[in-house]
């Protein structure tokens, strides 16, 4: 009986190791955007998206140019991923479009410390409800923290 159990364990170990060895290098699963095509060819965007975003960032911030082609807002509006409940996931979810690749390549982005990671109004969070309730609150809020 003891011999049989040892055999079983050995067999499992061998099977497991062989399957991992046979599997290909894991690659990220990148969710598709909502539109038929991106603002540039996909391959081009994969390589250079950060350049386009950075360029547009300075143009928008300093020159007030708000064209839609490389607008960050547009990226977020198109590249939405929904969870099982049908809600658009935020950057905190690993299924978020940007996370799907950035987690894989271990490049940390801080865009979403300021920018909304979901289309406003369609977000799963309570952005709107909290804003609405706030506007009804008095200007001097109570300090709930203490």
């Amino acid at each position, binding site marked *: 009986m003891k011999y049989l159990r040892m055999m079983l364990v050995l067999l499992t170990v061998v099977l497991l190791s062989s399957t991992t060895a046979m599997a290909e290098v894991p690659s990220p699963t990148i969710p598709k955007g909502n539109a038929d095509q991106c603002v540039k060819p996909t391959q081009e965007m994969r390589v*250079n998206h950060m350049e386009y975003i950075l360029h547009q960032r300075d143009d928008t911030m300093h020159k*007030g140019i708000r064209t839609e082609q*490389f607008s960050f807002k547009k990226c977020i509006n198109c590249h939405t991923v929904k969870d099982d409940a049908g809600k658009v996931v935020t950057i*905190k979810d690993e299924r978020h479009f940007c996370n799907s690749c950035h987690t894989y390549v271990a490049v940390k982005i801080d865009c979403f410390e300021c*920018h*909304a990671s979901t289309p406003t109004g369609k977000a799963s969070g309570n952005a709107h409800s909290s804003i609405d309730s*706030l506007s009804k609150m008095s200007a*001097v809020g109570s300090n709930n*923290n203490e």
Partner: protein
Amino acid sequence: MNKPEAASSGLSRRKFLTAGAATAAGVTVAPGISLLSVAHAKPVGQAVSDEQRWGMLIDTNKCAKGCSACVDACNTENGLNTGDEQQSRPEQKAQWIRKVDLRDKLTGHEVSLPLMCQHCENPPCVDVCPTGASFKREDGVVLVDKHICIGCRYCMMACPYKARSFIHEELTHQVENVPRGKGTVESCTLCVHRIDEDTNNQRDPACAEACNTEGHKAMVFGDLKDSNSTVSKELKKHSSKAIREDLGLNPGIRYRGI
């Protein structure tokens, strides 16, 4: 590597010509008649220029004491004090615009006015900024580039109007037009995301819009360099003052009745 093409080239020749024609047509509707809003026309793909200077005239006689429509509208428009920010102490909370009540000790005359970033021509906040994050746009709007801001808060100390706030809490669910994040300084943007839109979609800042909706009509927003704009005409007609005129900052926000 391919260089990203200039954003302006996204505007087709045809669109550019159409936009140009619309502007020209708007200005020359008939001799002596001009369409004010069309005169401001700036296609979305065009950079702001110093041909415009955005400003505001606030009539304190029309501003109602106790009314906070402008403050509420600002908070909603820019998504201020939501989420974890609600835990901030009152003195730490974001305050882009606030109501100030003044009382003349001698006569007892009381005045109520909204106070926000005054969008100075010579802004002290820009002078002291060590990174260039605090800057003035060509069209006179004073902003903080949060990509560069290191949160040192020199600008907050330099501003004589106490117009700037610092974000103390980690934020989520920001409004898509108004990115804000912990560790950066911020202030009234004159709702640049509204005024940068092309003519058809251009709107007044949220505070002025709310004041109009409320029926007080105390805030007139417009181009100070356009002599045909409502704000310029009002400024020409009535005497107005800048707060702390002695500092020589030439603010874009001016007040009547103080």
